[in-house]
C-alpha cells in the first residue's frame, strides 16, 4: 500500500540473503526485560558476581553501584543480573526502574515488582511454617498449606493468631504482620495489598484490618521493607536483592528530598546488615556528587564499578552474539558485517552500546533494501548521513 509516499507493508522482510532469519538488533533503545544476551565488560561482571556471591555465601549484606553513561548498558546489566537471580528459588529479587521522589517510592516499586500473587504466596508460606510448629501436619510451601486449609484439615483460626504473633516479633511491626496475614482473606486482601504497597487506604478499611498506622512516609517504608526482608529470611530465603535503576534521577529532587532519600537508604542499610543486597545503576557524574557530598551514604556502598565505552573487540563480540541466534546458514563471526563497517560504527557511536545496536539495526535494513550481500562501509555511511 503506497500513499503519499508512505509504504506500509506487513510482508515479512527476507533477511535470508544474509543467512539470517530476522534482524536481531533492537529497533527501540529500551533494554529487554528478560535479556538473554549479555556482552559483558569483564570487570563489571566480576564485580557484580563478587557482590552477589558474597551476599549468598556469607549472608552478610553488600551493596554495589554500577556507573556508566547513558546507553552504556546499566539497565541491561541490572536486568541481566536480575534474570540470572530470578531463576534461583532461594533469593528474592525486586526491580525498581527509578527511585522516584524518595524511599517510599522505591519501596512501593519493589513490592509492586514482587507482585500480589508472590507476596500472597509468602503469606501462605508463613502459615505453613506456623502449621509445622503448631500442628501435627508438615506442609511444605504455599500449595500444601492451602489445600490443608481448603479441606478443613487445619483450622485457619489455629494458625492466624500465632502467625501474627510470630511475624510481629520477627518484624517488630504488628501492623505489617496483620497486613501480610490478611492477604489470605479474599474480602480484605486488596486493602491489605494496598497498604503493603504504600498506596494508601481509607481509615475504615485500615480499621477493618486492625491496622493502626499509615504507611505513608520514608521512615515507615524503611520499617516495612525491613519487616519484609526479615520475614523472607525467616522463611528460609538466603537474601533479598533490590535493583535500583536510574539512580541519577535523585539529582532532580530538591536538596532536602535528595538528602531524605539518601538518609533513608542509609538507615535501610544500617538496619539490614545481613541478607540484603542493593544494586544501583547511576550516571557517573551524579555518583561523583553523592560521593563527595553524602559520605554517610556513599561509604556504606561497598564498591563502585564503571561501565566503559566498548572497544572494537567488544563490538565484534556483541554483534556476533546478536547474530548467532538468528543464523540459518553455517556462517559465523560478524558476517554479513565487515570489520571496517563495525569500526566505523564504533567511531560513530563512541562505543555506546545502545547506539551500536541501533546503528547496526538500521544498517542491516539499509543493506537489505540495497540488495547487498555483505555490508560495507558505504552502506553505513549512507545510513549515518541520512540521520
Amino acid at each position, binding site marked *: 500500500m503506497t500513499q503519499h509516499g508512505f509504504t506500509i507493508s506487513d510482508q515479512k522482510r527476507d533477511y535470508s540473503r544474509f543467512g539470517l532469519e530476522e534482524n536481531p538488533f533492537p529497533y527501540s533503545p529500551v533494554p529487554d526485560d528478560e535479556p538473554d544476551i549479555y556482552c559483558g565488560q569483564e570487570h563489571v561482571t566480576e564485580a557484580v558476581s563478587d557482590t552477589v556471591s558474597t551476599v549468598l555465601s556469607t549472608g552478610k549484606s553488600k551493596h554495589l553501584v554500577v556507573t556508566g553513561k547513558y546507553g552504556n548498558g546499566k539497565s541491561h546489566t541490572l536486568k541481566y543480573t536480575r534474570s540470572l537471580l530470578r531463576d534461583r528459588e532461594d533469593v528474592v529479587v525486586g526491580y525498581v526502574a527509578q527511585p522516584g521522589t524518595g524511599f517510599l517510592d522505591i519501596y512501593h516499586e519493589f513490592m509492586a515488582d514482587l507482585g500480589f500473587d508472590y507476596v500472597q504466596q509468602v503469606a501462605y508460606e508463613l502459615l505453613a511454617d506456623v502449621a509445622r510448629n503448631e500442628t501435627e501436619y508438615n506442609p511444605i510451601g504455599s500449595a500444601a498449606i492451602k489445600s490443608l486449609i481448603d479441606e478443613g484439615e487445619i483450622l485457619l483460626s489455629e494458625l492466624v493468631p500465632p502467625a501474627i504473633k510470630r511475624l510481629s516479633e520477627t518484624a517488630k511491626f504488628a501492623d505489617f504482620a496483620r497486613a501480610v496475614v490478611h492477604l489470605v482473606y479474599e*474480602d480484605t486482601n486488596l486493602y491489605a495489598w494496598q497498604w503493603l504497597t504504600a498506596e494508601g487506604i481509607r481509615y475504615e478499611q485500615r480499621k477493618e484490618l*486492625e491496622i493502626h498506622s499509615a504507611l505513608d512516609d520514608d521512615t515507615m517504608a524503611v520499617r516495612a521493607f525491613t519487616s519484609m526482608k526479615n520475614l523472607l529470611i525467616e522463611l528460609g530465603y538466603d537474601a533479598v536483592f533490590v535493583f535500583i535503576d536510574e539512580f541519577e534521577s535523585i539529582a532532580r529532587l530538591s536538596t532536602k528530598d535528595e538528602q531524605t532519600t539518601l538518609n533513608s537508604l542509609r538507615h535501610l542499610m544500617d538496619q539490614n546488615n545481613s541478607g540484603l543486597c542493593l544494586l544501583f545503576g547511576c550516571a557517573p557524574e551524579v555518583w561523583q556528587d553523592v560521593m563527595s557530598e553524602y559520605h554517610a551514604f556513599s561509604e556504606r556502598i561497598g564498591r563502585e564499578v564503571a561501565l566503559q565505552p566498548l572497544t572494537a573487540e567488544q563490538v565484534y563480540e556483541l554483534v556476533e552474539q546478536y547474530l548467532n541466534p538468528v543464523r540459518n546458514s553455517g556462517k559465523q563471526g560478524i558476517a554479513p558485517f565487515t570489520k571496517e563497517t563495525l569500526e566505523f560504527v564504533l567511531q560513530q557511536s563512541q562505543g555506546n552500546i545502545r547506539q551500536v545496536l541501533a546503528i547496526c539495526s538500521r544498517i542491516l535494513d539499509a543493506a537489505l533494501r540495497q540488495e547487498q550481500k555483505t555490508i560495507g562501509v558505504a552502506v553505513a555511511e549512507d545510513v549515518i548521513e541520512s540521520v
Partner: protein
Amino acid sequence: MLYRQRTLDLPHGDVETPILLPVRNVGKRSSDNTPEYVGTIPDLPTAMINARSIYQRAPMWERLQEGVTLREEMEVPEDTIVFADSGGLDFDPTGPDITPAEMLSIQRHLDADIYGTIDIPLSRENWVEENHRRVRQNIEYAIQTSEKHREDDASLLFASVHGYDPETVRNNIQHLEQRGDFDGYALGSLSLIRTDYKKTTRLILAARRATDKHLHVYGLGGITYLPLLLYLGVDSFDSSAFIRNAGNRNYLLPGFGGKELHNIDHLDYLPCPCPVCGTRTLDEIRVDRNLLVRHNLWSMVTELRRFRYIAASDKDVEAYLDLRFQDNEVTQRAYRAAKQQVRRLV
C-alpha cells in the same frame, strides 16, 4: 439460583424446606411473649427455642422434669417441630456455663427435633485474638457434641458455625465435616453485621458452597432478608423480627419493609388480607400488640409463600427479586451483589 426445596425427616414429623422458625420466648420472663400461631398459620408448625433460658428458669424446668412436655408448656400441639439452639447470645463471652454434654441432655429432655451446638458469638472487634479464640472454641464444642450425639437419637444435630470472612466459614465447615458427624450447619454471628449486606451475603454463600447439607442461618430472618436468604439457598432461618417490629409498632408488609403505625393517619381498610387485618381497622391493630405480632408473622409467611409460588410456577425469580428490592437502594445494591456472586457460582 441456589433456591432449593427439600424434605426434613424429623421425630415430630416431616417439614418442607425452606422454612421459617419463629422465635418463641418460652422460658423467658418477659411481657413480649409470642402469641399463638401454631395451628393458625398452617405453614408454621415450627418454633425456635432457647434451651438455656428454659433450663435456667427453675419453675418451668421443674415442671418439665416432672413430666410436663415442652409442647404442653408452649401450648402447642405435640407434633410441633422445635429447633433448640444453645442460647449462645446469652453466654458470657469468656465461656458458657454449660458443657456440651449437659446442653445435649437438656435439648434431648426438651424433645427438640433439631439441636444446635453450644456457641459463643463473635464480637465485631478483636479480629485477631478474641474472635479466633471463639471460633476455635465453637468448633471444639461442636466436635464434643457430635461425639456425644447418640446414634439412636433421631433428632438432627446442626453445628453452629461462626466467622466474619468466607475463608473461616468454609474452613470451619470443612473441618467439622472431617471431625464430626452433623446433619446440617447453622451460621451465626450475622446479626451484628446485618447492615453489611454484601459481607453477610458472601458469608452465607461461603457456607452454602462448603456443604450440601442443611443450612440454617441464625437470627437473620427479617422481612427484607427473607427473600435474599431463599435466593441464596438457605434451608431454614429463625426470626424474632415480627415481635421486635411489633414492639416498635412497626407494621410489616412484603416489599415495603416496616412502617411505623403512628406515621399512618387513617385507613378504612388495611393493605393486608391476612386473617388478622382482613376484618379489622387500623385503629384496632394499633392498640393491640398481639394482633400486630400476628400480622407481622403473616407478612413473613406471605413473602415465603410468594417465593415458593414464583419458583413453583417457573417464573423468573430474579425478575421477581428485582421488583422486590427496587424501592430500597441499600437492599437493591445488596441483591445485585448477591446476584453477581450467585451467577458466578451457578
